[in-house]
């Protein structure tokens, strides 16, 4: 299997309405959804995707292409609205959006740290998420912001929190006849802040290890904190227990150091061609500390 041509023999379908797409997903077998293709075509070329009979290109469904602040009606998210991202919105389309840059700086940073311009002109966030790589850069900050996914099939819609969406490397909650139709990032409250840090071998490469932190501040107390890490577990990891444990605590260097050690202890990273587990474990605490500090500062907090 080389990367020059696509050997697999499949039919190309290009539905123009969501209904049509959902009908295809319901009736046909071995369907792969094509949005940007920068992951799908690559893996089909290298043969890491098994049997594909249909490639369903959803870019012709106009209604799926949006990345904007939207009211409740459109995406049924939490009270004070959310930033909604359609399945065919490209990474650059999202990163260039003013509202997103303003309200979700960590998300923007994560996206711009991905691959390179030409890839981001085609690749989509939805694709990155559905690809369910343990290192999905765009998912890490989204988990921290508490993103919610809308999955839809002919049978109906359901909402799934992003951190619950992943089952394992390449495995997601999606049923055979379902597709991801919306990503909703809840607008963060006023005094909150986030941070995203990525370590990779070379800039365009996939992260060796990445971290996302979101803190909602109440004076000097942590009202709410969500920490997520990439490339440290079989799926993008939401460090739930530790994150929730911080609620209500006084933010200070000791807490930061203690939290970092707790996270480090909790991790069971593996070695792969990018780096080894010792490095990941050692670096994880450094990232957590840095991330917490940065997020706290972004939330307007001070550290003595």
């Amino acid at each position, binding site marked *: 299997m080389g990367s020059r041509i696509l050997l697999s023999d499949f039919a190309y379908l290009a539905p123009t309405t969501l209904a049509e797409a959902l009908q295809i997903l319901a009736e046909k077998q071995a369907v792969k959804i094509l949005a940007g293709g920068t992951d799908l075509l690559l893996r089909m070329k290298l043969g890491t995707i098994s049997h594909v009979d249909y490639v369903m290109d959803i870019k012709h469904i106009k209604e799926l292409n949006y990345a904007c602040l939207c009211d409740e009606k459109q995406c049924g998210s939490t009270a004070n609205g959310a930033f909604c991202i359609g399945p065919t919105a490209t990474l650059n389309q999202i990163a260039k959006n003013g509202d997103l840059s303003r309200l979700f700086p960590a998300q923007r940073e994560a996206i711009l740290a991905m691959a390179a311009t*030409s890839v981001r002109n085609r690749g989509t966030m939805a694709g990155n998420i559905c690809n369910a790589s343990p290192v999905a850069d765009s998912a890490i900050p989204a988990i921290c912001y508490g993103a919610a996914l809308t999955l839809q099939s002919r049978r109906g819609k359901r909402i799934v929190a992003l951190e619950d969406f992943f089952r394992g490397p390449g495995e997601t909650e999606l049923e055979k006849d379902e597709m991801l139709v919306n990503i909703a990032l809840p607008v963060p409250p006023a005094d909150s802040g986030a941070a995203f840090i990525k370590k990779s071998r070379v800039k365009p490469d996939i992260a060796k290890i990445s971290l996302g932190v979101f803190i909602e501040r109440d004076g000097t107390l942590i009202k709410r904190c969500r920490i997520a890490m990439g490339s440290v577990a079989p799926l993008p990891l939401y460090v739930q227990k530790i994150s929730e444990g911080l609620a209500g605590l006084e933010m200070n260097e000791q807490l930061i150091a203690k939290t970092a050690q707790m996270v480090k202890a909790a991790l069971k990273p593996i070695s792969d061609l990018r780096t080894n587990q010792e490095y990941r474990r050692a670096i994880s605490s450094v990232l957590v500390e840095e991330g917490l500090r940065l997020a706290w500062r972004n939330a307007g907090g001070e550290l003595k």
Partner: protein
Amino acid sequence: MSKHLIHLTVNGKEHELTVASNELLLNVLRDRLYLTGSKYGCGVGDCGACSILHGDESVLSCLVLAVEADGWDITTVEGLADGDQLNPVQQAFLDNSAVQCGFCVPGMVITSTALLRENDDPSEAEIKDYLRGNYCRCTGYVAMIKSVMDAAAKMRGE
């Protein structure tokens, strides 16, 4: 294998082609339209040698199905110059002798042209970041970055 009739406008010239569903845009440009300016370097979106312009955006033609490109207005490196008149980036590459083996230059010049259409006064860092997806093994990028700076300046009329 399903077949599809597609229309491509490449460097201003219309083409009507019947393509197989698994045919890639890069191979159609090279082997069917004989525009061999766009190069195959990796096939997996890393090297940038296959970059083309889809409208004003730089896109990796090795990761696009030909059928997806139906209706596109494509510019390949062959379409950048106007007869003997090179586009500013190409001219700057020559003036700064930024071309050695030249295999990466088509992709580099296409992506740089996209950059300058997006941002007419990029800093050196911005250029480096923008071009980080276009590998070059000969030049070490220095002369290329300078060339993009010069081209940007020239286009701003300085």
